[in-house]
């Protein structure tokens, strides 16, 4: 029974995202399993399970490393694990220019293209019920392409 509950728990929550706690990466321990309560009019039972988990909750101002997934003339998208961050061209250093051959952004000594690695700072977050979106910047010192 306990095993079943644990399996269900892992399956149900791992890899999901809630606006409240962030991305649930991995369930560590189960602290408490309540006695089952049979639901009226069906044979199902409900258990309240308390658990601890590793979560990824991005914060504003956090500096993260990301992988660029797509580049367009407005900016680029990058993935920080499960979190997708968009960096607008306006939040890149002034010398960054869009180059549609690639496509990529070229700075004086940096280039941001698909599958490249960047270090960025999260400047804005939008928490929705099941997803979190972020806006980032690389227009600060020590941010940008990771060589």
């Amino acid at each position, binding site marked *: 029974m306990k095993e079943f509950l644990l399996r269900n728990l892992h399956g149900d929550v791992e890899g999901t995202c809630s606006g409240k706690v962030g991305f649930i990466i991995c369930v560590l321990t189960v602290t408490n399993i309540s006695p089952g309560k049979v639901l009226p009019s069906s044979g199902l039972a409900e258990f309240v399970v308390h658990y601890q988990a590793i979560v990824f909750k991005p914060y504003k101002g956090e500096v993260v490393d990301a992988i660029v997934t797509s580049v*367009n003339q*407005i900016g680029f998208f990058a993935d920080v694990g499960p979190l997708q961050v968009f960096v607008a061209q306006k939040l890149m250093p002034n010398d960054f220019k869009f180059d549609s051959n690639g*496509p990529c952004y070229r700075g004086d000594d940096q280039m941001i293209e698909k599958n490249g690695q960047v270090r960025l700072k999260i400047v804005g977050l939008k928490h929705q019920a099941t997803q979190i*979106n972020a806006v980032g910047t690389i227009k600060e010192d020590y941010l940008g392409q990771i060589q």
Partner: protein
Amino acid sequence: MANSDDSDIQYYIPRAHLPATIIALRTSENATQSQGDALIEYEYSEEVRGFVAEGEVSIQARRADVRATRDGMVGKIYVSKGDIVDDGSKVVMDYQGCDHDSVYEGMCVVCCKSVEVTTRSHVNMTHDAMSLAVSRPEAKRLEQGNADRLIDEGKLSLIVDLDQTLIHATVGTAIDEWINAQGEMPKDIRMFPLPDSPTPYYIKLRPHLEIFLKKVTKLYELHIYTMGTRNYAAAVANVIDPDSKFFSQRILSRDENSSMTQKSIERLFPCDNSMVVVIDDRADVWQYSPNLVKVHPYEYFVGAGDINAGHLPKQEAQIATEAAVESKSTTPKSQEMETQPAIPLTTDGSNTASAGGLPPSSKETSVKDATTVPPTEPGKTENDKAKVKAVKAKAPVLDDDDNELKHILEILETIHEKFYDAKENFKQHQSRKDADVKSIIHDMKRHVLRGVNILFSGVIPLGEAPERADIWRQAQAFGAECSRDLNSRITHVVAAKAGTDKVTKARQRKNVKVVRPEWLYHSIGKWQRQNESQYLLPDKPGKAPPTSTTPPPQTEGEGEDTGIEDGEDQGSVSEGMDENHQPMSMDKDEITEHLKSVDWDDMEKEVEDFVGDMDDTDADSDASNTQSDASTDGNRSPLLGLKRARVPRRSGLGKSVTFASGQEEESDSAPSDLDMGVLEEREVRDEGMSSDEGDGDIDEESGSDDDDDEEDRPSKNLKRRRTTAENGHAAYLDRGADDEDEGDVDADDEVTMEHLPSRAKASGRDRGDVEDEGEVGGEEDDDFLRELEAQE
């Protein structure tokens, strides 16, 4: 990155409030603020009169805020708490206004403020990110930047469709089996799995695709815009553009398209489409956009249609109209047509069956499979099926001779050239309007049929308002005028069949050309007015009764036809023959060798001899006609007659069948594997006979026959039929009349090699095929004739 100038704001303390003491900073550098937020709080003193006592002036401390005049971000702050500002020109704060030009998931990407996105204020203009919206002014700026870049590079934008434009894709078990039966992957067919499909997808690259892409990419920046899913689009792009040098990431799929039924240029180019050309096989999904260059749909896997068009509205395109014309004769039997094996699948399967040892029964299965393919496709209605069938009758079956891309390339090159000419003109001479591909395309089209005034007869279905028919609109788009009734301005009557009122009346006028619809289709397809003389409608209505399967002799001109849009015609020629071979695996060199090895003169002579023989019996043909009608199945007799009408042209094939069937008779008692196959095939075929006949005729009767020929044929046929009937061969005549069977027997009889060249010619060359076929078969014909005569 600096925004436009007006977004850089500097805040001062109002002069009336000087000197002012800064009480508190309500914000910090780089903070995002909304309009109306207090940024800096300060205190100043104000003289107040008569507050305490009349005439007395008191000074009171007041507090006020510097407020944000708009949404934006705080720049540098030049004051700190406790500072006293007494200079009205002192900047207390830099502030960056934000127009929320780009919004990601409802959040401005610059200031991170939540922004409500409406379709009016924002558009989506990136290929792959639905969640990213751009304000219209920003979109305009981006687009202008893009346009400037393209002009610098001397390019235009080209949006291409995938399905049936660049490739033809199919999926399903039937095609799986067929591919497996081939042993190796046929040329230019690629396979890839998709996660959401149990069976892999197969795509056939349209001929000349690689060259097309290579050349066009120098003139155009390419975008893919497909109704397929993202995965599918990416997979196809990976196949046709493995290095991502043509399309890069410029791929827009159904997943990113806001509509399931329509495509729009505005999705990618929201403000300015003057540099955008679209190529697609369907005009309706683009709402007949003036930027569209319509291409002839590429159909390779017959019956598969457009696998991603399931959710699109039924296509009312010209094919449908074409088909409608034909199907007058074929529709009643269209159910039976189902039994006609879907071409590449079964027939080639059966061919490999003889070569590769597939048991005959598997042929049957694949027949079933093939016919069940259409229903399993999403959204294929019965109508669609009928359409597919109708298309099948004409489609370039396994015909790899599609030259459409070459032709489209030419058109695109012309457009490009004209655009930059116009651009140059605009710069130098200040001509009134800037270059625009819309007007260029428009002008090019108008030029095609300028001065032509068309009257349709039997082309547009009666129930339809002719002005709304696709062909009508197309004709008008290409500069022709269309009229409902015959009047003095009419220059062309486009008629599906002779004998209509309009045709008869038009014939009485000197300067009216009566042409078959192909003239119009080909002119439109090639953007070039075709020579009418090759498309003239024959004077006489069909030989058989109008209700029978005599179709309008549509593809008559195919012998002379040199154009590229011969897909239909060639398809029909090759249909009967190709099916039984493996056209895709054909080696060009092999073909030429075969061609060389054939003594054409000799054959020609034989054919002539043969024809001469037949002519002698013309006299008794009428009598024997009724006779043999009675003696054979009443339903089929007219069909037989028609079938036979093809004999002179394709005598080789027809004859060899009868010949072979004689042999088959002998071996009836102990049928070999091959015979089994043939017999089974016949069972299937018999049901579908009549409808097949219909198709067959449309296709087959299309030789470059002149009137003499037409006179000759029936009589010959009749004679042949009579004789054979008397000899107890009637049953085989039925079969002889059948394309499929002919081919089968051919293959079995090792005549295949003889026919290879002819077939190769049929699919490999543009003209002259028809006569040649006859010649190839001439030898056998002669043999058989002698045999017959001997029997008599």
